[in-house]
């Protein structure tokens, strides 16, 4: 009954060759103007719609929610067949995962029927309202409040680091619904439309000029109870899985990642050395080789850990091992690229704009070690949840949230 891998491959190949343009989409932070970015979002929606119409979206999503009801192996086949083709990369993370996966796991039948088909069609782009100003790594310490008002909830507070919220449609939002219990036991999760009254959006400029991130101010935002996901005060049950999905997005079968997408990046390293005039220098060549080894080791790790989780050899917190490796490898690769630039690393001519791009990437090196959970949090999780070392003792354990020391107020 279910489509075989070979059948699926044949169908996907035929459709893709006919409908999906050639090209590679990837993300370079802060490289586009607002207009370009909006065009790109529109193109992403179109590509998503194209794939949807060919029955190539929601590979693992049950058919009743508009998906294909197939397996991770089919998803892999799709990635292979999509090699060298444009893809709706802006709709992968966080829309497909963690947002859609959270709705799929915790949503009511009604919620799933409403949102998942819309997501798969490219009609709804979702974001995460998780971090807060002053919250740092302590996501469960959320201070955005949701107060019950009859059949509705009234949200007040502020969320930050929402990627691309200014062109998105909906968000998952973690809010505090009970202040008299320890922090993990007083949270709930809501679905919030960005066009709701009382949602004000402020764009944050990053040090490299990118304005992709937003801060939202929520003032008396009214949300029907039907937009709540999971039980009241039990939001951390949802939140833990949410963050697991977030950490493991890089290997999720719910996202489309055309095969070979990263190979170009690997090749770039040698090309960078070549372009910087250092391809004949053993010192530069060793750096290139070091980077290559790191990237390949990273790739193998990203295959190994999910397999170990699937087989039960490791628990699902092991996704943080991938995250941590990604942070460390990313940092080193960024530094190696910068070193390869030589004197162009500080100031460059227009002709060397390709090199200058890497100098700017070094400037924002830490962005990827902060966004999506800091390296430090990943180390906490790996040491405590993977290696089983003693938990860090913190004063917020077991006390009502309102009594937790907060330090001086942040803006």
């Amino acid at each position, binding site marked *: 009954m279910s489509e075989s891998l070979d059948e699926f491959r044949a169908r996907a190949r035929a459709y893709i060759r006919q409908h999906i343009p050639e090209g590679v989409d990837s993300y370079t932070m802060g490289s586009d103007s607002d207009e370009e970015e909006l065009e790109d979002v529109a193109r992403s929606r179109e590509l998503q719609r194209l794939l949807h119409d060919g029955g190539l979206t929601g590979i693992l999503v049950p058919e009743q929610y508009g998906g294909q009801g197939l397996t991770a192996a089919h998803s892999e086949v799709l990635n292979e067949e999509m090699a060298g083709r444009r893809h709706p990369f802006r709709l992968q993370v966080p829309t497909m995962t963690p947002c859609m996966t959270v709705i799929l796991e915790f949503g009511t039948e009604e919620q799933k029927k409403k949102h998942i088909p819309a997501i798969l069609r490219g009609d709804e782009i979702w974001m995460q309202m998780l971090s807060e100003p002053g919250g740092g790594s302590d996501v469960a310490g959320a201070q955005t409040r949701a107060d019950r008002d009859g059949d509705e909830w009234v949200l007040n507070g502020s969320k930050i680091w929402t990627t691309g919220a200014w062109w998105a449609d909906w968000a998952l939002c973690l809010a505090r619904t009970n202040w008299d219990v320890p922090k993990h036991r007083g949270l709930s999760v809501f679905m919030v439309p960005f066009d709701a009254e009382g949602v004000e959006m402020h764009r944050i400029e990053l040090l490299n000029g990118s304005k992709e991130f937003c801060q939202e101010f929520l003032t008396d935002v009214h949300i029907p109870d039907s937009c709540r996901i999971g039980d009241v005060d039990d939001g951390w049950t949802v939140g833990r899985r949410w963050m697991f999905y977030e950490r493991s997005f890089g290997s999720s079968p719910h996202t489309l990642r055309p095969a070979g997408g990263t190979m170009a990046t690997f090749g770039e390293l040698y090309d960078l050395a070549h372009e910087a005039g250092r391809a004949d220098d053993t010192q530069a060549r060793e750096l290139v080789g070091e980077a290559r080894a790191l990237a*390949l080791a990273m790739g193998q790790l990203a295959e190994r850990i999910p397999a170990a989780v699937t*087989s039960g050899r490791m628990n699902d917190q092991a996704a943080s091992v991938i995250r941590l490796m990604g942070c460390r490898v990313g940092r080193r690769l960024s530094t190696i690229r910068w070193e390869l630039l030589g004197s162009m690393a500080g100031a460059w001519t227009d002709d060397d704009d390709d090199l200058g791009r890497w100098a700017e990437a070094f400037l924002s090196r830490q962005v990827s070690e902060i966004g999506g959970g800091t390296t430090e949090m990943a180390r906490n999780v790996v040491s405590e949840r993977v290696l089983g070392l003693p938990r860090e003792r913190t004063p917020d354990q077991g006390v009502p949230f309102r009594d937790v020391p907060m330090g001086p107020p942040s803006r």
Partner: protein
Amino acid sequence: MQPQLTNDQELFADTTRRFLQEHADVEAVRGLRRDERGYDVGYWRRGAELGWTSLAVGEEHGGGSISDNPLADLTIVAYEFGRHAAPGPLIATNVVAAALGRSGTAAQRESVLPSLLSGEGVASWAIAEPRPHDRLGGIAMEATPDGTGWSLTGTKLQVEAGGSADHILVTTTSPTGPAQFLVATDTPGLTLTAMQSIDLTRRFAEVVFDNVAVPASAVVGEVGHAAADVAQQLRIANVLQCAEMVGAMDAAMDITLEWVMDRYSFGRPLGGYQAIKHRLADMKTWLEASHGIADGAAHAVHNDERADEMCSAAKAYIGAQGPELCQECVQFHGGIGVTYEHDMHLFLRRVIVNATTHGTVTDHRLRLTDILETQSVGRRAGGEAA
């Protein structure tokens, strides 16, 4: 290493593990410190009976593997060797056995292979050379035609178990290109000298060939066309080295995790201090990535797909992180960790030696760049995206 073993592989791993626990425990290893061979002959013969030397040789030549992936089977042994810092010429013998199985003459297979498979005989591969040819793949030693045979002159270093070996598979240049010869160690003109090493039980030798005359029957493969054989030997050696390193790293990490939980400092277990925890988290990451890339290399060699690239990536990555991981393990032990009576250094030694023979970290990084360069030039010439 492989998270998914077949039942037969599990059984084989278990047998090897229990044999090593009994016959190659850390006290036994320490006892071999000044032993000339570095291993007990009977131990090695019994290991061979378990299959340690037969896996990489086809059944038609007297060998046999556990699964349809002989190299994967072999990495199981190598991994356990690492976990126990076990003695014995595992890599040396298997590389030569595989080479003979692949390209040996019928006579070589009949006269030499059986003794390797039974553990009666030992053979080793001589490839590395002294400065300035000490970089990976640098071969200056020459074979020159001499009547119907060949005359060999040159110096080889880091020949594992050279002192125990009956035969040496030596890689040379020749007027028509790379060549390999199987030479008995008692051949006139061949001189073996023990080298010093970091490893407690692994012995290395310098082998000097001074106009060593060998008959045409000593040729392995075809003179001038040995490149593919040499490449395959290096791959096998690298894959086994990596499996051993990962085993040793696993052992070091396990000992350390137990230590930091048991050991109290200022009234708290060491493992509860966040600075220690964070470093252990990093180490766990290196360890898992090392497992991954070691498996990836074995897989790539088996499938003959991007084999050199993956082998070099594995040696470059594990060769850099392995010694660091073991040194961190030493550090967390404090004083006791730097004593001879503690086990930690056995694993540190094994990792260091494997990281530097058959290509250093730098060698393998440079080779990765060579490969990228070829791809990049090809890409630019062909105008296609990689």
